[in-house]
């Protein structure tokens, strides 16, 4: 009965144009050095977006993204590669870019727990840290192949997270919040006082290397010198793509439905056969797994781990990214992470004030646009198809 659904013919153009513009813009922003220019660019972006909004172009864009996501997704990856290629020898910009990619992966994991299943997790950074420390320990003391290390990082995060399952499952609301908050503090203090893991001093992490290809050395393509961060960009991009697809499919399946159902009304859900515990556990473990993998890779990128990188405050930033982007909307997360990571880096003039401004922005969002920059649309199991 496949004629139930027929393919939509939504135009691609708006999406493509939007992507092209934002790519050009991102390059310009990342390349800009002079503060006035950067401020100008940022102001321009705000104006442009608002204008596009009022001229109704944004709707066109979002529609073509909603219906032609598969194609535009690929273009988006290409766009990212263009940016990376443009800055092929600029260590710092690439590092920034990789950071964005990995933070997005982590927030996607958080999104499963919190955006779909409604399981509070104020220890996102802690699980990120568990991943990072895993790669620190394994790369220093063992010869475990590094791709495997990433996997183990994820598993450990999930495993240690599962120690919290009992309280997480038994508590609701604020009581549940305490569980993860307490864990975040506990873990940080533990890392600080425990000598085996370097104490407050932290640990060095060996750079990644796969089949003898060492990620921490610059390399040449033809005559052109490439930054070693390009290696990490490739891996991070693959990781992000994989995670994105996974999260998308999850949402657009009965499982996504289950998670939404239990978030919105546990009682009703369980009256319709939903095993609350089973799905909460699935979401919590899967989320931590993803966060852990991202953390493990980030540990290698940064080359250093210390307790102070994984504090409650950092977890808070992750949650806020979720909120900023629009809870439950992966694209929103990409945008939000980009803003939260890049803007303060570029806008040196606000460096000192960035945390303050960030907090103020979140407050404003909560007051005036609690649904986030890109609110999550109603679930469509097969985008681009009309039933």
């Amino acid at each position, binding site marked *: 009965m496949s004629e139930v659904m027929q393919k939509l013919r939504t135009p691609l153009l708006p999406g493509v*144009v939007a992507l092209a513009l934002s790519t*050009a813009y991102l390059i310009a*922003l990342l390349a800009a050095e002079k503060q006035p*220019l950067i401020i100008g660019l940022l102001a321009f972006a705000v104006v442009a977006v608002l204008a596009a909004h009022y*001229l109704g172009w944004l709707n066109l864009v979002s529609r073509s993204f909603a219906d032609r996501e598969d194609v535009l997704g690929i273009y988006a990856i290409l766009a990212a590669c263009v940016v990376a290629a443009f800055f092929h020898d600029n*260590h*710092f910009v690439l590092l920034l870019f990789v950071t964005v990619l990995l933070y997005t992966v982590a927030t996607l994991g958080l999104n499963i727990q919190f955006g779909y299943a409604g399981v509070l997790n104020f220890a996102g950074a802690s699980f990120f840290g568990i991943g990072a420390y895993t790669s620190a320990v394994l790369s220093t003391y063992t010869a475990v192949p590094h791709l495997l290390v990433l996997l183990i990082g994820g598993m450990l995060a999930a495993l240690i997270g599962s120690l919290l399952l009992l309280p997480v499952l038994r508590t609701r609301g604020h009581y549940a919040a305490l569980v993860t908050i307490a864990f975040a503090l506990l873990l940080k203090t533990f890392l600080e006082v425990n000598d085996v893991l370097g104490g*407050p001093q932290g640990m060095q992490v060996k750079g990644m290397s796969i089949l003898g290809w060492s990620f921490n050395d610059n390399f040449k393509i033809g005559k052109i010198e490439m930054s070693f961060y390009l290696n990490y960009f490739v891996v991070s991009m693959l990781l992000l793509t994989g995670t994105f697809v996974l999260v998308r499919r999850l949402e657009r399946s009965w499982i996504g439905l289950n998670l939404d159902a239990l978030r919105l009304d546990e009682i009703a859900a369980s009256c319709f056969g939903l095993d609350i515990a089973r799905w909460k556990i699935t979401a919590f473990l899967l989320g931590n797994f993803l966060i852990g993998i991202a953390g493990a890779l980030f540990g290698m990128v*940064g080359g250093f781990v*210390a307790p102070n990188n994984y504090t409650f405050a950092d977890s808070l930033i992750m949650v806020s990214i979720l909120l900023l982007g629009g809870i439950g909307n992966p694209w929103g997360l990409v945008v939000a992470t980009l803003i939260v990571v890049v803007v303060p880096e570029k806008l040196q003039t606000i460096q000192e004030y960035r945390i303050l401004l960030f907090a103020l922005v979140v407050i404003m969002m909560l007051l005036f646009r609690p649904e986030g920059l890109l609110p999550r649309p109603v679930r469509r199991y097969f985008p681009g198809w009309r039933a």
Partner: protein
Amino acid sequence: MSRIARQLSFIFASALFVGALVATAQAKDKVKVGFIGPLTGGVSANGLGGRNSADLAVKLRNADAKAKYEYELVVLDDECKPNVAVQVATKMAADKEIVAAATHYCSATAIATVDVYHKFGFPIIVWGAVLPDITYRAKYAEVHRVNGTMINQNDANAALISKIGFKNVAVIHDTTDYGKGHNEYFSKAFAKLGGKIVGTFGVTADQQDFTAELTQIKALNPEVIYFGGLTPIGVRIRSQMDKLGIKAVFDGTSGIVSDAFIQGLGPLAEGSLAFREGAPTEKLPGGKFFMENYAAQKYDNPPEAYGAFSFAAMDLILDSIEKVGPDRKKVIEELANVKARDSIVGKVTFDDHGQNTVAVITKYVVQDGKFVEWDDSEYATGKRKLPGQK
């Protein structure tokens, strides 16, 4: 309408884009050098002193007509936190325009960043951190240090307190490599002299309440409490000692040699001991010259204990660049053969680990709200007595 507008915005974007590219290309004769230190947080006084001193070195050089380049100082804040330090170090080392830098007051941050400098081939001179491993753990051509290590400092410390006649010492140290290092070297040195460590307590660098630890120490009732850590928790521990009525002598390290320590404690600071490698600034060969120029700039913080070292480090960097040009590799080679080079902190010689060996150690005791050299103090003459001093 909409198409036109779209084209317009596209043109605008690409225009900015081009403009940005132009903006990235920078002036030739300008050379960037860097400084990293703790500009915020508990030890920021020392960081700012170091920053000003490095800044002074650059200013004097730019004022010098014979200088080949115009120098610009890029300053970053490591907050005395390893993780922040690694971030800013990466940021600075990754910026190709910055040729070399004087970095770090806190050992915890210096030891965390050496690998970064090595990874990026970025030459640095440590201006304040005293942990031996910074230069000796690995043999990195990029890493140098003008100030001495904590080893000699702790030998002097142990020697002094056993000379005064103290036998039992309780040790409190923060659990960073700085504190751990001090604990290790002091305990060794003191044991050699027949002293007894009655108890050792590791504390986290942001701990607030020490009453529990101090109560345990009180029960052990030592004559001296040795503290391996930095000013902020030094202040907390000293004042909480008083709360619990502990009369022992407070014996600190180079980490508490700063005005902030005295301001934080007021009269309680009296009779605290501290040690620092290198002669006191005013007694340095170039001390007078340095102090005068520093004063002339009217900075709003004093140079503090390590300002002179920061100045010397930056001056060495500038000399090298003048000599071999703004090229990281060449600067590294140049720094490798610094031998018996005159500087305001005396002759500088980098051994094969880039370590400058500074034998002389200054012993301080707080007297009337000032860090006074022990030998000039009324405690040495016996005019005043430390609690329990024979």
